[in-house]
């Protein structure tokens, strides 16, 4: 990656949910940046805080019970956490757009695609209805919907799963966003359709130059599409580096554990090396490192001291006590 100013910087983000049963530290110290045209992967198991990170950036955290309690989200240098809801509405969908695993999250089942697309376009762009309709057709063609003009009058349920995903992508791209957040966009799809959608996103990124935050639980998808990666565990970033380093020299025991637990076709193992135990309850995190109870390399100190994210090696960040003594550059707490 060439040195460029990031379009988006997330700094020390903490988003907590204040529930009757206790405080859920859903996002606890997330820290990353992303440059124009770059794809950053956020990978982690369910409940690790990936979606809440995305929702925090979009300022869509339901409050109460949720609250962004600390941190900054700098978009082109401006902190989105200081914006009013009115200002955010201008940014959402125009500057930063989001797509989801289930396209019906962003498509309304009772309106035609035309109505929904034209409306989105008119909110943000200075066009008349006819121009907006033409733009909608253009977008549907861009995402590979055959006979796009004819399909404008269709309702979301009249499209197949893969095609609906394309329609949602077209909607998200309606206003040429500079950042696209894709939250598990292919998790519900079959591999052949997943391959089509990932290829489409890569093509669109090349043409439109947007930055993509790719949220996934699939290291295969990370390997395929990302430039850099942040691995999350229990609300915290545990490793953050470029893709090559991550796969070549994974540092965090959790990352290593993940890689060893997936079956690989190119290298069949007798037995998978599973990570023992379960992810922790975010309301009652263990003292010390959140991963310690499951970590095969944990020592006494891991049960009492919570590590911080440090830079260990060139742009390779890790949150683990095994690396802490050697360096002192603290990135996020």
């Amino acid at each position, binding site marked *: 990656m060439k040195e460029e100013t990031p379009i988006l910087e997330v700094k020390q983000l903490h988003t907590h949910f204040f529930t009757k049963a206790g405080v859920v530290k859903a996002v606890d110290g997330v820290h990353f940046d992303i440059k124009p045209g770059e794809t950053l992967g956020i990978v982690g198991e369910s409940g690790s805080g990936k979606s809440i990170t995305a929702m925090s950036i979009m300022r869509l955290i339901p409050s109460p019970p949720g609250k962004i309690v600390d941190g900054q989200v700098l978009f082109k240098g401006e902190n989105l956490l200081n914006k009013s809801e009115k200002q955010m509405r201008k940014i959402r969908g125009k500057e930063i757009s989001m797509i989801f695993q289930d396209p019906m999250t962003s498509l309304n089942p009772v309106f035609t695609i035309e109505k929904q697309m034209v409306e989105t376009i008119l909110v943000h762009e200075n066009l008349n209805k006819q121009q907006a309709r033409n733009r909608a057709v253009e977008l549907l063609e861009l995402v590979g919907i055959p006979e796009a003009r004819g399909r404008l009058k269709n309702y979301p349920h009249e499209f197949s799963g893969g095609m609906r995903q394309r329609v949602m992508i077209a909607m998200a791209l309606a206003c040429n966003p500079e950042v696209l957040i894709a939250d598990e966009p292919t998790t519900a799809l079959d*591999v052949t359709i997943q391959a089509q959608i990932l290829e489409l996103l890569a093509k669109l990124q090349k043409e439109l130059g947007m930055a993509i935050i790719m949220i996934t639980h699939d290291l295969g998808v990370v390997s395929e599409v990302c430039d850099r990666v942040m691995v999350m565990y229990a609300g915290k970033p545990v490793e953050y580096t470029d893709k090559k380093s991550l796969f070549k020299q994974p540092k965090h025991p959790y990352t290593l554990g993940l890689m060893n*637990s997936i*079956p690989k076709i190119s290298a069949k193992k007798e037995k*998978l090396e599973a990570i023992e135990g379960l992810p922790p309850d975010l309301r009652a995190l263990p003292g010390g490192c959140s991963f310690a109870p499951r970590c095969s390399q944990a020592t006494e100190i891991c049960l009492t001291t919570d590590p911080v994210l440090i830079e260990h090696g060139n742009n390779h960040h890790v949150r683990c006590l095994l690396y802490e003594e050697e360096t002192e550059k603290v990135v996020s707490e």
Partner: protein
Amino acid sequence: MSTLLEVKNLKKHFPINNGGLLKKQNGAVKAVDGISFQVKQGETLGLVGESGCGKSTAGRAILKLLEPTEGEIRFKGEDITGYRGEKLRKLRRDMQLIFQDPYASLNPRKTIEQIITEPMKIFNLPKQQRKKKLDRLLDVVGLSSYHKQRYPHEFSGGQRQRIGIARSLALDPDLVICDEPVSALDVSIQAQVINLMEDLQQEFNLTYIFIAHDLSVVHHISDRVAVMYLGQIVEIGEVEELYSHPKHPYTQALLSAIPEADPELSRERILIKGDLPSPSDPPLGCKFHTRCPYAEEICRTSNPLLKQVSSGGQQAACHFVKEVALEH
């Protein structure tokens, strides 16, 4: 190894009713449309294919949870296709099903003890024996004795799958049909459950039909693999041979579409166009021809049959794959 299960030209069609008063049948969803294969004692046959291709329906038809429309199912040499009543009930001891979502299949109002011992009660196992068996099952699936009095909602997804597995083993089955047993689990938990299933297979001499859409998982666990497309088997063979030398264009596309967690690996991707056609109105000729990069005229008119494509016994159904004599 002896053949435990043999399926011949199995079909399961679901009639489509037009909803009118006369319930006139308007065609059918050909969910499973003539599949044939054998499973040997102690092996794992993987069943893969995109969602909607008929994997679950095939599994349920074999277990006779669905009445087959046509074809024959032989289990331990006996034709069980027409089994009913008491005979079918007895058969259920020997064939079990593990579901993708154990939660949906575990009664939320029953304790773990009740859930696991229920099948034993149905088959009148004495109480003492039930208790012993329960403890043993909990132990082998990695649950503790204090879990007995708890309810399904108190468990995580991975633990619930362990409970489902324990229940399926309560009657010492020979064949377990596993329908996407790890698809809903996170990878670290998925590995735990896969390892468990492999251990149990050894320990109890189980035969698995392992249904999944995750081709890496199927590769890991299977001895042989069958690839389904629109209700038919398009390719079947020994796992390593099939994965390293897929002969059917659909298998090739499917395998090339898997994202592998290794950025150094560069592969050529065969992108197939479009979506799965509807199983109620499948294409004529080769069912794959609408998406196949190699389709020619003959593919639109004639449906290719499975034929021997390697000396090792691999079979594929494509007009353009060369037939090879079987080695003896």
